[in-house]
């Protein structure tokens, strides 16, 4: 036998449930612009019919509906799209960081422009040609010296700037490691909270969203693989459980986060007290459970994610005693090689070889000194360690422009040939002579080649960054199409739920009227 007030109860449930739906709609609208928010839906379900099943159940024809309840509040999300999103974000992280590193190098090299190394070499050559045709002209000599200083300065400046950016890249690797550890820590904390809540039968949607946001962030740094473990208890079937994170490598994946524990990633060779970075990265160590000190060596790192790109820019070694690789160390080495080869060739011509009858003579008839010298005497000549001989700067007459046989104490009668500019011409050729130290290229050719290689790498990086950016946007659009809030849709829902709410309220009025009939209109016969 059903109760008198069952109709009221049914309608009240309708009121409550539609109200929950309206509140959820309000929550969705409120979060329409929250990054990482997934829209939520109230899963409405009809409550069990009357009478309940059982031997002594009441006898009524058929089941009678007892109304509705909010079964669960679920966020709408597609984990497959999340997986795609993270894989694209990972690629974008790699190429964007690479694009940035190359762009910075391009800025420093400043080619093509009127201020680059190429221009200062070209100016130097021109001044030497002018000297060759007017070797007696003091002005022409001064210009040669100044242009020589400009060449040395250009080498110094470029080399130092590149080394500085390399240091900044090292800091960036450091910051990335700190960020990765912080993200892992936050995800672990969320895991813990989720594991606390879920067994009580709740769905902590906002915690899931927060965790997914962090996973998105983490995926820009490293290629990760994510899996889930159920928390048990009274957890709903659609509860996500705790997340386990593995870093993908060329070898086997490294588990860095599981349930309540995560491994801290540290940079191998970094001085923990001074914070000084190693000259080149050999790898990372994942300290503590669950990785248990597993080694993420550079050789094992997949060519993906911002961290690997930073390592490739900064410089790395695949084995402890292997060769140094990486974009910035490569460019520095090339500049050094070029500066050394150029200075050596130039000095050789400037000093001549008197023993074999090859003379290089300055305006006073004395043999030429070194034109380019080291700044720091303990190190060999290089792009960062090159300057013009200060004797020559203070006395430009010392530029050995001539090939005449020099005056010396044993032969005071020979005059220096003031009008002889042959050696200045030879010095100019130093730029175009094919040098064995540069693998048979000229200084000029070697530099153009280095710029070309950088350009090709840059062009590829820009294109790849653009492509992965486009892909990421389309995946992100797909994800938004599933998860993001549509205001129109919410408004439609609002009207739906409002009307249902109103109708439930009207049902109560109807019940009220019916009960009124029973209570006030019945049993008054003959009154």
């Amino acid at each position, binding site marked *: 036998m059903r109760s008198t007030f069952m109709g009221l109860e049914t309608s009240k449930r309708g009121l409550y449930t539609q109200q929950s739906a309206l509140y959820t709609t309000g929550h969705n609208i409120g979060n*329409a*612009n929250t990054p990482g928010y997934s829209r939520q839906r109230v899963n409405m379900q009809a409550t069990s019919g009357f009478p309940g099943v059982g031997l002594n159940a009441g006898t009524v024809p058929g089941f009678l509906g007892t109304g509705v309840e909010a079964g669960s509040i679920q966020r709408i999300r597609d984990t497959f799209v999340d997986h795609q999103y993270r894989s694209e974000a990972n690629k974008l992280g790699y190429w964007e960081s690479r694009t940035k590193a*190359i*762009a910075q190098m*391009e*800025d420093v*090299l400043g*080619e*093509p422009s009127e201020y680059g190394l*190429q*221009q200062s070499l*070209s100016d130097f*050559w*021109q001044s030497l*040609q*002018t000297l*060759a*045709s*007017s070797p*007696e*002209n003091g002005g022409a000599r001064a210009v040669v010296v100044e242009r020589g200083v400009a060449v040395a300065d250009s080498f110094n400046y470029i080399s130092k700037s590149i080394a500085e950016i390399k240091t900044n890249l090292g800091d960036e690797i450091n910051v990335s490691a700190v960020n990765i550890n912080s993200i892992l820590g936050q995800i672990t904390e969320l895991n813990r909270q989720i594991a606390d809540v879920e067994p009580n039968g709740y769905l902590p949607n906002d915690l899931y969203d927060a965790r997914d946001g962090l996973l998105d962030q983490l995926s820009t740094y490293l290629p990760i693989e994510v899996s889930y473990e159920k928390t048990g208890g009274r957890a709903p079937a659609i509860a996500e459980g705790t997340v386990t994170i593995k870093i993908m490598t060329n070898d086997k994946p490294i588990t860095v986060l599981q349930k309540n524990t995560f491994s801290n990633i540290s940079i191998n060779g970094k001085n923990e007290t001074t914070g000084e970075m190693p000259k080149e990265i050999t790898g990372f160590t994942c300290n503590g459970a669950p990785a248990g000190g597993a080694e993420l060596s550079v050789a094992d790192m997949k060519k993906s994610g911002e961290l690997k790109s930073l390592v490739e820019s900064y410089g790395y070694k695949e084995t402890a005693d292997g060769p140094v690789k990486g974009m910035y160390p490569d460019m520095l080495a090339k500049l050094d090689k070029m500066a050394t080869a150029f200075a050596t060739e130039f000095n050789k011509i400037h000093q001549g070889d008197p023993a074999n009858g090859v003379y290089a003579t300055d305006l006073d008839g004395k043999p030429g000194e070194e034109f380019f010298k080291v700044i720091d005497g303990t190190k060999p000549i290089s792009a960062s360690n090159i300057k013009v001989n200060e004797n020559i700067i203070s006395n430009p007459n010392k530029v050995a422009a*001539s090939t*005449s046989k020099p005056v010396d104490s044993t032969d005071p009668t*020979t*005059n220096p*040939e*003031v*009008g*002889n*500019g042959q050696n200045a*011409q030879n010095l100019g050729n130093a730029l175009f002579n094919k040098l064995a130290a540069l693998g048979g290229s000229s200084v*000029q050719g070697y*530099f*153009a*080649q280095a*710029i*070309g290689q*950088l*350009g*090709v*790498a*840059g*062009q590829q*990086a*820009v294109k790849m960054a653009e492509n992965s950016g486009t892909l990421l*946007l389309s995946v*992100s*659009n*797909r994800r*938004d*199409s*599933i998860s*993001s*809030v*549509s*205001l*129109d*849709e919410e*408004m439609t829902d609002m*009207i739906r739920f409002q009307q249902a709410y109103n109708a439930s309220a009207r049902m109560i009025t109807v019940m009220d009227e019916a009960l009124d009939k029973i209570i006030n209109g019945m049993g008054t016969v003959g009154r």
Partner: protein
Amino acid sequence: MRVTQSMLSQNMLRNLSSSYNKMGKLQEQLNTGKKVNRPSDDPVVVMKSLGYGMQVNRVEQYQKNLGEVNNWLDSSDDAMDGVGQVLHRARELATNAANSGTVTANDREMIKIELEQLQEQLQDFANTKVGDKHIFSGKMTDKPLFDKNAGGYQSGASFKENVSIEVFDGVDLRVSTNASDLFNNINQLFTDIKNDTDDKYDFSAAIEEIDGLLDDVLMKRADIGARSNRAELMENRLMMQEGAAKKQRSENEDIDYEKTITDLITSESIHRATLSVGARIIQPSLTDFLR
């Protein structure tokens, strides 16, 4: 596909930023007049442009060198012309002096005085300067060929060394004219006449010698002329080279203004369309129609 507001605004943002990017690139191209501004824009163009830039610089420098060559050669020719005129006058004087029937001892004395003047003028020619260089002093351009202190012409080996200037990659042009022997010989002749005290100098022999010296001067001038011709030829070649190098450079790296401006206008109208489409699409939502 379900489309939401956030997707619309995200897409519009992306479209706007990409059209801003495009316009920024075009603006940079129009400002600099260059297609590329960093190696990654187009590595091939940049590599080529480094080469062409160097090429243009070199041709320009060789043209400057050629100016120097012309300076030397023109001044040498002028000086040699002067030497020739001196010799012609000397020949006239010698012819007069040789005519012993009509010329008195006094006249001869006058001739000697004039010859002495000519000898001094010759010294000036021998010390001709271009800028701060003595052009007849071989590689000793800082020293005059006629040494006033010693009262004689320099004879060191370096004074006979040739001076060359590079006018093209590996092409040297000799700019000095070795005239120290010539000057010495003329000087010797004049000194001999001057030193003749007994008035028995054989002027007819002197005339012959002067004729020989005039031939020498002509030969030097012919040599200078031939080199001037070569310089002129080189100048034409360099001019062509310059044109070619600049054209190659321009074709390689300069923008086509008509095309770039058209591109800019196109990008601008796309940008405007993006803006107005965005404004129309994003504003209205169901909220505006529900009351």
